[in-house]
């Protein structure tokens, strides 16, 4: 039985250097959502959030449902990952500009992001898609909100998480790419299946 591998923020390069695609890790510390709208702000507009430092940090491709409890405090109702590939066109630049170490999302990223992960020392991990209540249970507290003008899904929600996961490494610091490798296998099988028809 292997020991549960837990990353803690701020995430040093040493924490992620030896992780390889397919490994499972968890995150404890600070995490911010950032998806299409947030990536646009950072990469296209050069605007950075005031309450969250991406450097050595972790971002989550996600747009949550946020509720208010009886004391008026905001809490995570459901927060699963969104399709990471939508951010492919800007993620490499995002990594370079921000110094982020851990990107969490759904499914994989493509070659440009994998190269940026290798070059700048970052990884992409996949959280099981759709398992949004499981994820919400790992959020201890919402500590901040930036860019609420983008609306609930696109705003940057800052939260403290405890053993957030499972996170499966999909791009590692060598630029290996789990989902692209899987897709090559699926394509091979597909040709077998179609050929057999």
């Amino acid at each position, binding site marked *: 039985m292997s020991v549960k591998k837990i990353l803690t923020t701020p995430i040093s390069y040493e924490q992620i250097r030896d992780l390889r695609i397919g490994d499972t890790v968890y995150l404890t510390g600070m995490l911010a959502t950032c998806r299409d*709208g947030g990536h646009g702000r950072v990469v296209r507009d050069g605007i950075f959030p005031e309450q969250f430092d991406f450097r050595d940090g972790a971002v989550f491709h*996600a*747009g*949550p*449902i946020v*509720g208010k409890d009886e004391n008026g405090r905001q809490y995570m*109702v*459901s*927060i*699963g990952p*969104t*399709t*990471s*590939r*939508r951010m492919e066109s800007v993620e490499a630049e995002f990594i370079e500009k921000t110094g982020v170490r851990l990107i969490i999302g*759904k*499914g*994989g990223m493509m070659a440009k992001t994998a190269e940026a992960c290798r070059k700048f020392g970052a990884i992409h991990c*996949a959280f*099981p*898609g*759709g*398992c*949004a*209540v*499981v994820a*919400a*249970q790992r959020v201890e507290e919402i500590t901040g909100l930036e860019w609420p003008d*983008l*609306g*609930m*899904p*696109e705003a940057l929600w800052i939260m403290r998480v405890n053993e957030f996961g*499972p996170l*499966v490494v999909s791009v590692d610091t060598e630029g290996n790419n789990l*989902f692209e490798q*899987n*897709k090559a*296998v*699926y*394509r091979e*099988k*597909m040709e*077998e*299946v*179609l050929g057999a*028809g």
Partner: protein
Amino acid sequence: MDIPAREKLVSAVAEMIALTAIHLSDDVDAALRRAAAAETNEAARTMYGCMLEDLELADRLNRPICQDTGVLQFFVEAGTGFPYLDEIKDALTEATARATAQTPLRPNVTEPLGEHNTGNNVGFGAPYIEYELVPGSTDLRIRLYMAGGGCSLPGRSKVLMPLEGTEGIKRFVCETVVEWGVNACPPLVLGIGIGTCAVTAAQLSKKALLRPIGTHSSDPKAAALEEEMKRDLDRIGIAPLGFGGDRSVLSVNIECAGRHPATLGVGITTGCWATRRGELLIHADLSCEILSHRRLMKGGR
């Protein structure tokens, strides 16, 4: 005192919306549990375990299974004798806003060409409503589909050359599933439409997706193709969640319509493992039944 008809409609639909966000329909729930139980790959079993844990937590905490509760799409079959035809659109719109606040749902609806979020899932052309008239009926049947982002991304429609035939259809579907399906939270519920043009093929694919798992196309050739394609896609094995395992789909549903001899339109609509759809039947006296979640109704379970 009588509750006005509009309020009865709104509260019935809002209840169905909440139920659909928090619980899978009977057919999807059963199909997912069958897939999970039959899976032999160890890592894949862990992922299915996570999905089933999510369903349990959603049920216990009364929260949406997935944070992406989609853009609400209603497919209405209105009996021409249903007494409140004039109320339908307003009732569905009001129910959408109410369920968004109460369930709560994620406010997704954003202006078509900008980034302003309306905050209540109501906006220009939203919720999306399609109507079909049913002559001789006094009932109103409302099907709800929560169109999530991830599972809407792979959707496409294309007109093939007729000589490409069944093999062409299979290649188009398989390539779409392999390239885009991995990100759409498989095992997928796959709707395929076959018709004359890109639009009718796409519409038929949505109709196919709305059909319960376990039912088959009334066209025998299409029904056979459903089985064949499910077998083929499962051999590719992209599920769960693109990590790989014993299958790719929960179901392949095909709907087709007589086509032009010179065209073979093929539409693809994908639903995720948490495909959320609801079905509500409202009678002329405004009594109603939720048909999609019978196991959760009184006397069920």
